[in-house]
């Protein structure tokens, strides 16, 4: 057997030290996330009740519930998904199944990267300039959702593209050899084999869209509007904006109220994320190739 030399021992020690240091650093990133979660649950959970979830805000928003905001967030997310999903999936199909390696494809990829990096408040400015005034949608769910949809488009494209490219190329070639057209191949082979991956990406998109505040502030979300929206041309309250409002705009809000709002928002997001992670694990286990 080898004897450990002094050099060996010293290097072992250094390695142990570095490993300990790095694990500590990692811990420093994770502890805040868990602390935040714990504090929100600890301070927010006393607020949670049926009246809080399904009641209207009352008394100048210092009491009552959050139902109009909750419903508004669901409206905004649903309408924005209706736009972002078809557009994003078709973009991903183009990039995965059609796009030749040329300057246009390079431009598309660059545009996607940049679209993902545009600050949310710039998206808001665009929404105001384009949807609210130019297309005359006014401040409405439609304008806000379209702004959100454009913001989430790169996320849909990237996650869908990943699942499409996970389908082995041999599957497509087998289909083409049978004389199928490109569309037939996409419909009968590529999409059925990537549905679960695409779905995972979409579930993951919901919490991100629901949490956005800046893009909807000036395009369709109202601070106080205790009615449920009737159509996409109405304004609406939203959970994220409601948290901002009760934290900064309203005096004499009981301390627990914003914690309750934050907890509901965060819980909504966590549930969707857990769902997505669970789904991903389930799908991975079933994968046949």
């Amino acid at each position: 057997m080898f004897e450990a030399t002094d050099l060996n021992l010293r290097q072992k020690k250094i390695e142990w030290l570095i490993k300990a240091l790095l694990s500590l650093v990692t811990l420093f990133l994770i502890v805040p996330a868990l602390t935040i979660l714990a504090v929100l649950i600890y301070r927010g959970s006393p607020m949670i009740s049926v009246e809080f979830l399904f009641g209207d805000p009352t008394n100048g928003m210092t009491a009552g519930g959050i139902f109009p905001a909750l419903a508004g967030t669901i409206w905004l997310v649903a309408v924005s998904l209706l736009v972002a999903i078809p557009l994003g999936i078709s973009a991903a199909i183009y990039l995965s199944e059609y796009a030749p390696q040329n300057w246009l494809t390079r431009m598309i990829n660059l545009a996607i990267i940049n679209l993902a990096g545009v600050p949310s408040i710039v998206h808001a400015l665009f929404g105001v300039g384009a949807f609210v005034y130019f297309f005359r949608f006014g401040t409405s769910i439609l304008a806000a959702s379209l702004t959100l949809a454009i913001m989430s488009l790169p996320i849909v494209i990237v996650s869908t593209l990943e699942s499409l490219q996970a389908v082995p190329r041999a599957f497509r070639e087998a289909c083409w050899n049978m004389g199928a057209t490109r569309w037939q191949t996409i419909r009968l082979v590529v999409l059925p084999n990537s549905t679960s991956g695409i779905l995972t990406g979409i579930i993951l998109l919901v919490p991100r869209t629901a949490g956005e505040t800046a893009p909807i502030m000036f395009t369709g979300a109202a601070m106080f509007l205790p009615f449920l929206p009737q159509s996409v041309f109405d304004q609406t309250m939203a959970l994220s904006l409601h948290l901002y409002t009760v934290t900064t705009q309203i005096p004499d809000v009981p301390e627990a109220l914003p914690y309750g709002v934050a907890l509901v928002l965060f819980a909504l997001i966590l549930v969707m994320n857990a769902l997505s992670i669970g789904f991903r694990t389930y799908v991975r286990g079933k994968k046949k190739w």
Partner: protein
Amino acid sequence: MGDRLEPANAAEQTARTPMSVGDMDGTKQIVDADQRGFDWFLDKAFQVIFFIGGISAIVFIFGIFTFIMREGLDFILGNFNAAEFFLSQRWMPTSRSNPTFGALALILGTASVTGLAMVVSVPFSLGAAIYIGEFATGKTRETLKVLVELLAVIPSVVWGFIGLSIMNPLIIQVFDVSIGLNVLNAGIILGLMAAPIMTTIAEDAMKAVPDTYREAAEAMGATRWQIIFKVVLPASKNGLIAAILLGIGRAFGETMAVLMATGHAINIPTSIFDSVRALTATIAAELGEAPVGSDHYGALFALGIVLFIITFLINLTADLFIRGSRDY
């Protein structure tokens, strides 16, 4: 597509198998009919639909630039004074007698907060990326990745709320200062917000380094940390730079968290305990009050143009680095 196997084109197929139309007397005519059937048209129709989807990203990027330019142009061509905009710290858009639009304090506010965020975030993110990518294994690794993702899904307004209601009293208590809404508060929060994206991209970059590199170093007798510091990190350098750039872009463009945690006071910061105001937060706070078409409204769009151009450049550079890194 190059030399790849291509799918059949329905029209070509039918054309290559000529239809024989027989007369009763036995003289067969070969008809090279154009048999573009339903499937052919369907195929073309979907190709067009997908192409439209494909170029939508380009359309939107141009759309965003065009529309913020359109709203901001009147101001830029009119009462805009570049020297004042970039060099004066007097941002007084609502003054009746003499409105001034000096964005220097806002630019420095954004810069100081983003800078501190990077000081906090870069060592922690890269350290975590090394640990998750190179040391952690199996279940630990998966759990750590999920927890880092947890940081990424906290919405920015919740971060702002945390800055306001948890960090603010904490900073006042710990450092004995009069106000806890300052560069330090926003810097820590932005650092935590930018950390997940940096960790994920840095880890991807290190994972892309081929195992043969590691094995070669190991065969030479290198220890784990020697492999990481002498082989993996240098080989993934471009990817790591891209990760940092994207983190900067994330912190720079953040709106709600800085609006709530910086104190929102126009001020050129001299210490980390000064309250500042960020470019993004200014737009978010004032757009609702600015009358459409006024100088104030135009000036806010001009700030938007500055933000758009800077993030565009950051993302472009990051993309070049990512592309440059794939040389193995």
